[in-house]
């Protein structure tokens, strides 16, 4: 096989961590060099401002124009998601470890190991269950509330903040893990066990 064939074959397979991680850092650095900062969650506030949230709190009285660049990054990431899923991924299955598959099957996630997202939560059929609506809405609510409270998410704190050796970002990331571990180990059995 030639180098070219190898490369294009790799493109369609899941990308290894040692390629993806440095590329994420590169995107962060390019944004800094463009005079901006890598942070995806502040867009949630911009959406609130666009929707007229300034009527309820001065916090949302911002100049939306100054946030336009970040909305364009969001637009791009939507396009990127389309390209990644529909043009570059002939096989959507995520090869998680056998141990993880076993744990998920015990919780009722039959799709573990065969799809990109659990079909029990993210297929159109799953939406016939009101419990799924509640789970997704609450999950999103916690993401939005938490990230603005903490002043950043995975991009703003775990990548940008830690790259700049910020102690507040380390505290936030420790919080991310406290919350994530509580959810997966203590609450999942209560939420999903049938």
């Amino acid at each position: 096989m030639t180098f070219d064939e190898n490369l294009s074959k790799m493109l369609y397979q899941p990308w290894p961590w040692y390629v993806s991680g440095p590329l994420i850092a590169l995107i962060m650095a390019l944004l800094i060099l463009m005079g901006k900062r890598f942070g995806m969650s502040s867009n949630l506030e911009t959406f609130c401002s666009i929707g007229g949230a300034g009527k309820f709190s001065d916090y949302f009285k911002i100049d939306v124009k100054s946030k336009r660049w970040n909305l364009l990054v969001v637009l791009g990431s939507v396009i990127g998601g389309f390209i990644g899923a529909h043009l570059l991924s002939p096989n959507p299955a995520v090869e998680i470890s056998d141990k993880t598959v076993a744990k998920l099957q015990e919780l009722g996630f039959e799709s573990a190991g065969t799809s990109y997202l659990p079909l029990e939560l993210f297929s159109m059929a799953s939406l016939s269950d009101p419990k799924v609506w509640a789970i997704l809405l609450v999950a999103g609510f916690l993401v939005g509330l938490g990230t603005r409270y903490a002043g950043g998410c995975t991009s703003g704190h775990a990548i940008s903040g830690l790259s700049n050796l910020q102690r507040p970002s380390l505290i936030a990331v420790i919080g991310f893990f406290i919350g994530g571990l509580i959810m997966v180990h203590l609450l999942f059995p209560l939420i999903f066990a049938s």
Partner: protein
Amino acid sequence: MKNLAYIILGTFLGVVLYKSEAASWFRIYEMFQFDSFHMYGIMGSALAVGVVLVFWIKKSKVKSFSGETINIQDKEKSFTRYIIGGTLFGLGWALAGACPGPIYILVGAGYWPIVIVLIGAVLGAFVYGVLRDKLPH
């Protein structure tokens, strides 16, 4: 021209996060189970390269592409807001299996139920903005 650059950067980010499977609910669950190195590898290698790049940008006093001085502000000092906000975020991150970047990416990938997560996230940001002055920071 600059607008196009932001869209292209975002597109690149979307492809990288989708193809690395960092946008997969399953990978987030696996990470919190400590069953695989994958997600830690992504974040660890991003940080290793990120620390060097940020150090270089600060040390070299390189100008931005448009010739302005780059000033990376320190995060505001506090403990309470980061630990409480971070924990709330972590609860949501593990349940949704997606943080804000991947939420947008999964909309593009066509997993429509993620739109409910997005609506919840905007509501959450709204509630923070309204309650902000009453919350401990």
